C-alpha cells in the first residue's frame, strides 16, 4: 500500500509542478514581451504591436543608448518619483505609527468612535472625495506641489490600522517601566516603542512605497508643470507616438520595474507581510 501511495503522491507533485510552471510562464509573458521590445525600434511597436517575435537583425541597444544619453526628461521623472516616494513613506510611517500607538496604548473617551471612523475611511474609495479635495487644494494654493500629494494621506487609515494591530500585543509593563524611568509619554513612544516596531515599519514601508511609486490618478490631477512629473505621469506623456516617444516608452517602462523589483528580491518577506496584513483576522 505504501509503495502505491508514494507513486500517486509523486504523480501529484509532478502534475502540480507542470501546472504551476505553465501559469508562471503565462504570468511572465507580458513582462518578457516588453523586455524583448526594449531592444526593438520604437516604430515597430506601433506597426506590429507587442509580440514574441525575435528578429536579431532588427534588435539593438539603441533604446538603451537613448535612455542613458538622449535628450529627454526620463531621469528627472525618475528622480522625482524616488524623492516623492521616500518623503511619502517616511512621513506616512512616522505619523501613522504615532496615531496607531495612540489607539493601541491608551484608553480614552471617544476612542471607539474614532476607531470606527478609521474603519469607515478604509471602505470609502478615495475617488469619491477626489474632486472636492482637488478644489480645496486649489483654494489653499497647494496645486502643483508635492505637499498636496502627500499631506492628505500622511495619517493613512490602513497603515494606522496595521500599526494599531501590531502594537495591541504590546506589554503595558514596558510603558510603566518607561514612566518610572522618568520618560514622557512621547519619549516612551519615540525611545522605547519605535525601535521595537522595525518589522512593522518594514512591511508598511514597502506597501506604502509601492503605492507611492505607482500612484497615478491623484498626481495627475495635482501636478501641472512638467518638471514636477513623476515617472507614471511622464511615461504617460509618451503614449502619443511623436519622434522617439515609443522607443523611450518601451525601454523606460521596462526600466521603471527594476528598482521596485530589486527591493522586492531583497525584502520579499516584508512585501508579503505588508500585503497580507489585513487579510488574516486580528
Amino acid at each position, binding site marked *: 500500500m505504501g509503495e502505491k501511495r508514494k507513486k500517486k503522491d509523486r504523480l*501529484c507533485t509532478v502534475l502540480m*509542478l507542470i501546472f504551476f510552471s505553465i501559469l508562471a510562464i503565462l504570468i511572465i509573458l507580458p513582462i518578457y514581451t516588453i523586455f524583448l521590445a526594449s531592444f526593438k525600434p520604437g516604430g515597430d511597436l506601433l506597426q506590429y*504591436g507587442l509580440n514574441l517575435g525575435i528578429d536579431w537583425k532588427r534588435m539593438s541597444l539603441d533604446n538603451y543608448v537613448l535612455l542613458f544619453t538622449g535628450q529627454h526628461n526620463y531621469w528627472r521623472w525618475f528622480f522625482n518619483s524616488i524623492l516623492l516616494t521616500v518623503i511619502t513613506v517616511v512621513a506616512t510611517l512616522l505619523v501613522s505609527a504615532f496615531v496607531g500607538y495612540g489607539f493601541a496604548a491608551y484608553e480614552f473617551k471617544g476612542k471607539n468612535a474614532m476607531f470606527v471612523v478609521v474603519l469607515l475611511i478604509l*471602505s470609502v474609495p478615495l475617488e469619491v472625495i477626489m474632486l472636492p479635495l482637488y478644489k480645496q487644494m486649489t483654494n489653499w494654493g497647494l496645486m502643483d506641489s508635492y505637499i498636496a500629494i502627500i499631506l492628505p*494621506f500622511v495619517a493613512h487609515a490602513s497603515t494606522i490600522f496595521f500599526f494599531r494591530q501590531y502594537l495591541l500585543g504590546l506589554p503595558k509593563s514596558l510603558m510603566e517601566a518607561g514612566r518610572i524611568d522618568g520618560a514622557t509619554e512621547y519619549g516612551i513612544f519615540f525611545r522605547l516603542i519605535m525601535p521595537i516596531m522595525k518589522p512593522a515599519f518594514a512591511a508598511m514601508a514597502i506597501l506604502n512605497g509601492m503605492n507611492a511609486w505607482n500612484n*497615478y490618478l491623484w498626481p495627475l490631477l495635482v501636478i501641472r508643470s512638467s518638471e514636477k512629473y513623476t515617472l*507614471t505621469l511622464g511615461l504617460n506623456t509618451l503614449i502619443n507616438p511623436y519622434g522617439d516617444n515609443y522607443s523611450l516608452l518601451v525601454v523606460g517602462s521596462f526600466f521603471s520595474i527594476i528598482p521596485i523589483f530589486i527591493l522586492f528580491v531583497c525584502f520579499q518577506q516584508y512585501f*508579503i507581510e505588508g500585503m497580507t496584513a489585513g487579510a488574516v*483576522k486580528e
Partner: protein
Amino acid sequence: MKKLFYSQKLAPYVFILPFVLTVIFFWAVPIANGVLLSFQDVLQDKWVGLDNYKRLLSDKIFLKALANSTRYMIGTLVLLIPFPMFFATLLNSKLMKKPGFFKSIYFLPALTSVVVAGTIFRLMFGEMETSLANQVIGMFGLGPIKWLKNDLTGYFALLLLACWRWTGVNILYFLAGLQSISTDLYEAASIDGANKWQQFTRISLPLLKPTTVYVLTISIYAGLAMFNESYMLWKGNNSPQNIGLTIVGYLYRQGIEKRAMGYACAVGLVLLVIVMIVNMIQLAATGTFKKEER
C-alpha cells in the same frame, strides 16, 4: 500648560490628533463640500436642488459607465476569488515543491505600475495581425480581431489585465489565511477518513472566511472604483462607444474635462452610496455583523 501637554490624560489625544485633523480637513470637509456642490450648477454658479441627481438617472452615458463598472466588478469577483483560493490550496499542499518560488513569480505583476501594465496590454491586444493576442488566435485559424474596439473583446482584455495583476496578490492573501489554520485539523480529518475535497470544503473553506470576506470587500470596492486600468488600456478616457468608461472615468470626464464640478460630485456621491450599500449587503450576507460568530 506644558505640564498638561505631557500629562497621561491629554497624551492620547495628542497621539491621535494628526488623524483627527486629517478626517476633518481631508474627509469631512471634502465630503460636505461634495454634497453641497452636487446641488449646484457650478458652471452657471446657481443652486439647482436635486436636478443633478435627476439628470443622472436618465443620463445614458452614466448608466453605461455604471453598467461597465458593475460588470467589471462582477468579473473580477468570479475570476479573482475562486481561482486564487484553489491555487493557494494546491501551493499550500505538502506535495508541492518550491511554493515560495512560484509565489514570488506570481507576485511580479503587482509590482508594475498600472501605466506600464496598461501600456503592455494595449500593445499586446493591438489590432494588427502581428500583436500577441492576434497571433495566438491566429494559431487556431481565427482572423485578426480589433480587440479594443469591440465591447466583449475589450471587456475580456480588461479582465485579463486585472487577473494578470491581482491573481498573485490574492494567492498570497489566501496562503496567509491557510497557513493560520492548524495542521492538526487536517490530520484528524484524514484519520477519520475524510478525502482532500472534504477537507477543503469542511475545514479550509469555513476557516478561510475572514480572508474571503476581506478579499471580497476590497474587490468590490476596487472593482466599482476602477479607473486607471481602463484609462491606460484605451489610452485616455475616450473609448469607442464608451465601452471602457467607468463610474470614476465619468466623474473625471465631467469634473476635470468638462469642468461640470457639481454634476461630477453627484456622480461621486452616487458611487459612495453604491459602494456602501453593496458592502453592507455583502457583510450582512456573510454574517460578519453577527457577534456570536466572532
